[in-house]
């Protein structure tokens, strides 16, 4: 009986291979009715098998019209800096450059480089220096930004930044192994970013 079932499954799969499968967000419960009928014919006393998507919660649906505000969750390992805050725009320091995120942004996962993240709410702009992290932009205009360390710009000491920059530039010049070079380069990048943040 089970040998027959696998033949039925493969038959229904090949029949459907020409059609495009919809994403799970668009068709929340795709139950292949022809498969279920064929199953019931062969094994009427057994429930048709469940698929992984039937155990999953459907993803939050994308609103048909673009929402007016972006919901930002900005978290650090030791604190939740912003939680569900509704803002107009955030500009995040992605590795590909400063990325402006408005409500209705294309779903994106962006790796962040050391740089300034600014949160725009009306005329208020709050700036943080982010050490590194990720930003997850979802289809429903929710942005999850995670960083290991993020500080408001006022809390950075300019003289320490200059000292660090000089120290790491010197280390980069004198580094021998690949690892040392990488560490020195990271130091140079982070300190130059902080420098630019303080002066820009």
């Amino acid at each position, binding site marked *: 009986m089970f040998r027959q079932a696998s033949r039925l499954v493969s038959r229904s799969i090949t029949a459907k291979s020409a059609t495009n499968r919809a994403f799970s967000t668009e068709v929340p419960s795709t139950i292949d009715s022809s498969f279920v009928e064929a199953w019931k014919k062969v094994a009427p006393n057994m429930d048709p098998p469940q698929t992984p998507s039937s155990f999953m919660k459907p993803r939050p649906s994308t609103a048909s019209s673009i929402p007016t505000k972006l919901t930002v969750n900005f978290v650090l390992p030791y604190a939740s800096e912003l939680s569900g805050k509704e803002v107009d725009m955030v500009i995040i320091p992605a590795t590909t450059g400063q990325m402006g995120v408005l409500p209705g942004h294309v779903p994106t996962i962006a790796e962040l480089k050391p740089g300034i993240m600014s949160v725009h709410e009306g005329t208020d702009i709050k700036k943080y220096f982010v*050490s590194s992290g990720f930003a997850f932009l979802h289809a429903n205009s929710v942005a999850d930004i995670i960083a*290991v*360390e993020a500080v408001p710009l006022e809390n*950075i*000491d300019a003289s320490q930044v200059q000292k660090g920059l000089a120290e790491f530039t010197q280390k980069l010049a004198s580094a021998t192994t690949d690892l040392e070079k*990488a560490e020195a380069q*990271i130091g140079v990048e982070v300190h130059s970013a902080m420098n630019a943040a303080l002066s820009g």
Partner: protein
Amino acid sequence: MASTAAVPFWRAAGMTYITYSNICANLVRNCLKEPLKAEALNREKVHFSLSKWAGGKPEKPILRSDTPGV
């Protein structure tokens, strides 16, 4: 099948992302003004105890800690 994707320089040098991220965070913490710096340095402290297991029982644990006197 060698992948020709461009890797970041730290990955090419054998570093993982988490190491890179922690180094960046430490550098930023070092450039904070006082007294935030003291609080921040607290976050860098690590305390863990390691024990090897032999015959189903843990042996004497090895302690690695930044907090003195532990």
